[in-house]
């Protein structure tokens, strides 16, 4: 009798352990998803085409090269963006030193007046170059910025996913975010942002996912503004990881004279 009980307890314990392993906590899922989405590899070079499409179907286009390097394991990152198109802003460069626990440092270089200017970084929710993506969408957020709960495990377009609900801790332009995170590849495949009245604000979709240099990568994505109908499509024309970017690339020198080796 005693033995049976012990056996049962053991079985239950094992079961519990197994289910913990199979179903990690919401914070762990989000952390791993952010890690996969924003921190893949030690560095990354991407040539990006961005199409900004208004409700009437009129298009604007941004083409840029994005260089990223991770410094250490604490989440500190450096970003460098060079704009190829449109021609009126060609040569404009943008640099971000991103820190896990405080505001980023940001600089912009405006080639027409050869001006390097430090810019205020308190605009995570501002639009990135007029698109439907915010600065935060481009460079990532912290796990601790939101409270997460796992809603269920389901399928999305044939992929197994965790469905997560996240609520921002500080005031933001959304009050609730639903995300569908791939259970095997850990990439967010879809996200929905809702306002206080429960109205859908924006929808993110990962339209194409490929494995590049051993890292699962969203190579085609869309952000759609549900209220205005404006949407932005982002396509990675080229992407590589572990290309060997130097730390000193992310400095005023290269802001003024973009490294031609990487900016093609």
């Amino acid at each position, binding site marked *: 009798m005693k033995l049976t009980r012990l056996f049962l307890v053991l079985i239950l314990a094992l079961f519990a352990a197994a289910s913990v392993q199979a179903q990690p906590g919401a914070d762990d899922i989000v952390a791993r998803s952010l890690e996969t989405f924003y921190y893949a590899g030690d560095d990354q070079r991407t040539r990006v085409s961005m199409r*900004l499409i*208004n409700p009437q179907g*009129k298009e*604007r*286009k941004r083409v840029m090269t994005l260089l990223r390097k991770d410094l250490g394991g604490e989440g500190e990152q450096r970003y460098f963006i060079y704009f190829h*198109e*449109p*021609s*009126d802003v*060609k*040569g404009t460069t943008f640099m971000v*030193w991103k820190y896990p626990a405080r*505001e980023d*440092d940001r600089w912009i270089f405006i080639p*027409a*007046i*050869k*001006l*390097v*200017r*430090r*810019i*205020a*970084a*308190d*605009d995570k*929710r*501002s*639009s990135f*170059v*007029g*698109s*439907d993506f915010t600065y935060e969408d481009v460079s990532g957020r912290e796990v601790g910025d939101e409270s997460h709960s796992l809603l269920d495990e389901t399928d999305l377009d044939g992929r197994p996913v965790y469905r997560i609900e996240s609520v921002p801790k500080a005031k933001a*332009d959304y009050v609730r975010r639903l995300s569908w995170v791939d259970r095997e590849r850990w990439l967010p495949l879809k996200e929905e942002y809702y306002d206080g009245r429960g109205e859908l604000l924006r929808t993110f979709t990962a339209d194409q996912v490929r494995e590049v240099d051993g890292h699962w990568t969203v190579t085609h994505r869309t952000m759609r503004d549900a209220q205005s109908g*404006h949407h932005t499509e982002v396509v990675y024309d080229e992407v590589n990881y572990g290309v060997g970017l130097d730390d000193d690339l992310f*400095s*005023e*020198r290269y802001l003024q*004279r973009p*490294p*031609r*080796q990487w900016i093609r």
Partner: protein
Amino acid sequence: MSRQMSATLRLGLPTVLPAVLTAALVWGVGLPAGAAEASPLEIPEIHGFLQAHGAARLGGVGCDPGTACDGPFNEQRLQLKAEGGGLEGALGYAGKIDLLHDAALGESEADIRELYADYNAERYTLRAGRQVVTWGVADLLFINDTFPKDWTAFYGGLPLEYLKRGSDALRLDLFPEFADVQLVLADFRPDRLPDRERFVFPGQAIQAELDEPSGLEVGLRVSRYIGSWDGALYLSRTHYRAPALRQVGAIWQGGFPRLNAYGASLSGPLGSGVLNLEAGYYDSVEDRDGNDPAIENSQTRLLAGYSRQIGADTTLGVQGYVEWMHDHDAYRRTLPAGQTERDELRGVATLRLTRFQMHQTLRLSLFAFWGISEGDGYIIPSARYAFSDALWGEVGANLLVGDRSGQFGVLGDNDNLYMTLRYAF
């Protein structure tokens, strides 16, 4: 003095350039890997724009006959821009030429805005030719940026890039561990100041012969990151770019007196915004005791600025600026009768408010100068709309108010509305 200068410093850029370039190539041990066997020059990319700009003066003061002061700007320009490189990034070149039809004055010209070649090595870079150099952290106030400017374009509402004039210069950037060092050797170019062809001024016109200095000007900037702050020190051995006029008998003569400027700047995060600090000492070499009323006295200039986001896509920037004239007593003693006395301390405050709307296709902007001590001001509201990636239009105004003896107020009869249309390709 300028003649004296040219005697002691007769090394013009054309003489120095080949020697420096040769030296640079010899020292070019740090060539990027593979540069030696790389393909030569790339085919340049050609871009540019077509731009129309017009400004109409507001207000009823009559124009002098034969001037364009009622419609100071009516111009069409084609800018062609070529850029390229070679030797795996070791070489670079760029040219920007404006073909300008100035219908206001009935003139046409080709204006070489920039034309330079770059040499990039691992530890240094060289840029030779006509180029724009921008220093300092202030916004539309200048302390350590002693490089030439076009105030005519600025007061006429032309796009901001036309405020900066290129310098014919050799620029060497060195990148040792401890700092970035920039050395600029340049030929003198004056500022372009509002004149009576397009602007209305009180008083009589003065015809003066201007003697431009020859010889090289030298600028040195040393900068580095100090934690999250950008720090820089500046030295300029240059000239005032506005002429100093003096009456000799019946005629007026003008020159550009020597100026040495020393300064520093610091820029970094404060709260959720950016704090900019800049200071400079202007050593008026030819009037160190302040007794020459034709030449600016020495000055100390101080600036503090702060900018931050105040809402989504909305930025607010404020600045406070002080100009302290040294030897003010000597200045007062020697000031010719009838001339308005300038204050020992001149204070200016500025405000910049920028808001983007409609997915950043609409930019609303307000820039205002307030001459605190001189009791004048300059307000520039503008709205720019991007019809597409290629085409934008801007309407705005230059409004100059307040005391007519102030730096802005003196242009008080020149309020204007302007419009710019640009098609980029």
